[in-house]
């Protein structure tokens, strides 16, 4: 059967993913609502399609894993906006580092306290703690401190999608005069998805967000053994 051939499957799910993403992008340009982002529309449409066609996640991700792998070169690509903002970064690197440290501590600490308050299991709590770091780092940290990397990946994505939207609201409310603070807010709170959103606000915000995301990731991976020892 043509339907069951693996090439057709890979092509079908890849094209469907890209098509829903493009549709979401087009819709967002027209509607400009927080719920019209491709990060909500595309996954929801794909989940519906997967349920209708009885596709499991394991099969789906096998066909579309190459798209996720492109996050690697996307990270490399951040060298360009970071390079463009080198003057700003050279001047304020200490401030950005302080923001990243304060943000990471808040992320881990607040999840620790809130999970206890809500009575969540230890494995859920440990899987949720690294969720403010971008995916590859977060999964490494999660494994080190005794969480479940797969679950962490989900929490990271949910944090990114909700955080990017939340960040847009916060930027309007908080009296932030510097693009530096706006960028750090997105890069620390909503990693990759937030960085993409920050780029929509401005080039300065976007590159600061990208830099903070990378800083936070590296710093947390380095800190994970210490954290594992403390937990």
């Amino acid at each position, binding site marked *: 059967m043509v339907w069951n051939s693996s090439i057709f499957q890979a092509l079908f799910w890849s094209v469907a993913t890209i098509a829903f993403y493009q549709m979401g992008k087009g819709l967002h340009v027209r509607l400009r609502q927080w719920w019209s982002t491709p990060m909500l529309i595309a996954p929801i449409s794909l989940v519906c399609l997967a349920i209708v066609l009885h596709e499991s996640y394991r099969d789906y991700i096998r066909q579309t894993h190459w798209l996720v792998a492109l996050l690697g070169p996307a990270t490399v690509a951040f060298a360009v906006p970071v390079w463009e903002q080198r003057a700003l970064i050279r*001047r304020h690197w200490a401030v950005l580092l*302080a923001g990243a440290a304060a943000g990471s501590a808040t992320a881990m600490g607040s999840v620790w306290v809130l999970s206890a308050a809500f009575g969540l299991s230890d494995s859920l709590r440990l899987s949720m703690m690294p969720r403010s770091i971008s995916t590859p780092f977060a999964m490494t940290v999660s494994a080190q401190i005794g969480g479940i990397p797969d679950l962490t990946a*989900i929490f990271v994505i949910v944090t990114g999608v909700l955080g990017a939207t939340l960040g847009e609201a916060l930027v309007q409310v908080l009296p*932030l005069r510097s693009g530096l603070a706006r960028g*750090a807010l997105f890069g620390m709170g909503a990693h990759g998805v937030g960085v993409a959103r920050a780029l929509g606000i401005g080039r300065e915000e976007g590159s600061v967000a990208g830099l903070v995301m990378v800083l936070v990731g590296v710093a947390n991976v380095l800190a994970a053994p210490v954290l594992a020892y403390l937990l």
Partner: protein
Amino acid sequence: MPLRKIAVTARRSLRSNRLLQIGAVLVFWLIGEGLARVTGWPIPGGIFGMVILLSLLASGAFSQASVRRGANWFVAEMLLFFIPAVLAVLDHHEFLGVVGLKVLAIIVSSTALVMGVTAVVVEFGFRVVCSAKEDSHGVE
């Protein structure tokens, strides 16, 4: 001589062609992945690639014009690369109930807190640095 000619042509086409630049970014990524594997450090290959590209840009060995358009494409379409990972929820029906709501509540409140703290720290530091700069200018 012909070798030099090839180099010049290669550089010129790299500057004008976005597809080639996308390829260049991919090459840096592959080198980064290789390094990550060889060293065995728990740092993603993309970060290695980024550091290599940054140092090449800083040393002037590689011009920004040769990667800018390709890099911008990757950055602009980055959201697409996250989407397949979201479908992991298909495997976790436990999040459809109360636990899911609790997790959602924790993620939203913790993320708001993280963003607030980070932004306030950076904004405060920014203002301190800026006023220190202004003061030193005032003395001069």
